[in-house]
């Protein structure tokens, strides 16, 4: 029954998440006996004793003074309460708080890119499939081969250069006031949109082309299937055939690839945020990395992993919904 499959899948995701959390916990502890050293690496102008005292204080503060196993259970306990720990920053703000502050901004970019990319991409893909062999199709193919080799940050730089500096259509660097003076007023929203234009554009280009190519391939593959011939032999109208028969079957491979591409999208976004100095989780992560703020880094990693797990789970379940052939134990 399909329900057992769903439950199995969800349990499996939980298991994966548990392993990821554990990994997350141990990674910053690689190669060091004392996590406090990570926080405060020994510096030349300090005596041994001073360093020891500082480490003691640090340990107490961040809970490193207990055994590793105890730290682990504390960590898990904290997670279950939604506490991701305290950042190494001055003032030890809550990791969760820092993340939540920046999360919406990252979402602005990701959601926009995904929506625009998906819709435009699928449309172009269908067009290319219908006009296969003609210029629309070949153009897509050429664009695909080129786009695979062009990193999104390169595109970002070029766009930033031309549209940002030369033509000054959009701001090349994010306005720092965009965040601080944000309100739900139209003017403020417009400012966000303007600043978001180039980052989204850089990410969307690759996204559109890849969805388009995927859709085009799926549609053509489906069009060559026997049941499409049957549909034609039944005298169904062209529109009916396209939508009810071809498109409904083409969606399946597209849904799968959607889930798969999530982790790549996250990585790409980190770089793009950096290029435009966009105030999102990506830049937060890089900041954390630069200051060796492990709790913050690991907190973000957990969140991102969790998000990926959910995304893959959702696409799997959507697939199950769409394809009546999938049964228990089916692996892609």
């Amino acid at each position, binding site marked *: 029954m399909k329900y057992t499959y769903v439950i199995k899948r969800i349990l499996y995701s939980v298991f994966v998440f548990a392993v990821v959390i554990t990994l997350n916990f141990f990674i910053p502890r690689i190669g060091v006996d004392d996590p406090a050293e990570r926080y405060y690496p020994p510096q030349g102008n300090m005596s041994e004793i001073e360093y020891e005292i500082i480490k003691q204080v640090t340990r107490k503060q961040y809970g490193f003074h207990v055994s590793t196993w105890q730290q682990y259970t504390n960590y898990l306990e904290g997670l279950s309460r939604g506490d991701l720990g305290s950042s190494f920053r001055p003032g030890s703000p809550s990791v969760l708080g820092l993340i939540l502050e920046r999360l919406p901004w990252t979402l602005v970019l990701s959601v926009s890119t995904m929506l625009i990319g998906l819709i435009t991409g699928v449309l172009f893909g269908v067009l290319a499939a219908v006009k296969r062999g003609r210029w629309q199709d070949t153009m897509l193919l050429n664009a695909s081969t080129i786009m695979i080799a062009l*990193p999104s940050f390169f595109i970002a730089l070029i766009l930033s250069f031309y549209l940002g*500096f030369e033509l000054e259509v959009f701001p090349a660097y994010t306005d720092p006031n965009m965040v601080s003076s944000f309100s739900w007023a139209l003017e403020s929203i417009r400012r966000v949109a303007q600043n978001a234009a180039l980052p989204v554009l850089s990410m969307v280009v690759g996204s559109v082309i890849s969805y388009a190519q995927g859709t085009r391939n799926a549609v*053509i593959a489906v069009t060559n299937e026997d049941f499409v011939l049957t549909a034609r032999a039944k005298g169904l109208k062209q529109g009916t055939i396209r939508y009810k028969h071809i498109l409904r079957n083409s969606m399946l491979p597209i849904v799968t690839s959607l889930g798969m591409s999530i*982790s790549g999208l996250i990585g790409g976004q980190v770089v793009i945020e*950096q290029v435009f100095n966009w105030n999102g989780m990506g830049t937060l992560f890089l900041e954390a990395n630069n200051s*060796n703020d492990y709790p913050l880094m690991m907190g973000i990693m957990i969140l991102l992993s969790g998000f990926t797990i959910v995304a893959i789970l959702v696409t799997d379940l959507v697939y199950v919904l769409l394809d009546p052939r999938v049964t228990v134990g089916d692996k892609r």
Partner: protein
Amino acid sequence: MKKIRSIGAFIQRIWSHKQGKIGIIMVGFLVLVAVLAPLIAPYDPYDVSQRAAKGLPPSSHHLLGTSISTGQDIFSMLVYGTRVSLIVGVTSGVCIAFVGSILGVAAGYLGGFVDSIIMRIVDIMLVIPTLPLVIVLTNVLGRDFWIIILIFVALGWTGLARTIRSLVLVLKNSNYVKAAELAGASRWHVMVRHILPGTSHLLIMSTALSSAGIMVAEAGLSFLGLGDPTAISWGKMLADAQGGGALLFGAWWWILAPGLGIFLAVFSFMRLGIVMEEIANPRMKQTSSVYKIFKSLDSSYIADVFNSMDEYEQLGVTESAGGGETRETNA
């Protein structure tokens, strides 16, 4: 012996493929540039004494000008950057092929416990976003050139392992494998001598494609400033360009050059990989070629073909159609 011959034949086929020729030439060109870098580059970018004035525009002395931040010759940096990309890309690609194939074959052939473990690991690694993980690992393990390659390999084998495993599942059931098993060959023997060669095409193709992917990843990492600080990498050049104000000062060549370098390297390896895939799995439905054929159709030839099929039907009693015997029939 046979394996080498078949690889040689494989390379020959790539060469005879239209796109394959281009791929091989491009990759060859890049390798040449990387190897002969000291001869091609007019300056040694690693040599501090060879720095010039900062921010010079392109001239006959400095084909692409000098960097705004350090005064290094951009063209030379471009040439030397080939080395980093190629070494990181190809080494990672080859190592990924090793690790991925071993684990994929083990998972596919041995099945059971081994398979579960390996596939669980794959699933878990799939879920953690790659670039952030690479960043964390470089933080914890160091940013040395070889450590970075190690990290790429450690994260990159998963995709290949999966694909190989699927192939192995199919090969497991092929006749020659079953024959070997029946003849009492040890599992080890079957895996190494029978299954592994069956995946060779896939491996070579994946090496090309992985290398391409790793080169992009390395560029991204260096761009973020998190790559090996001592290496000259195209990604780093792009970061310097942006940080050094290339955009502000309109030094577009500074951005274009390394970007095109990345593009060229990735593109050529990808092309090679795609050609190899096409050769390994000949696609029967070449729709675009059908259109090409139709465009270049000789209509008079087709008309002749049709006309040659025509014939006159003879009804009733037969007449001889010139020569040869005929038989009287009952009308």
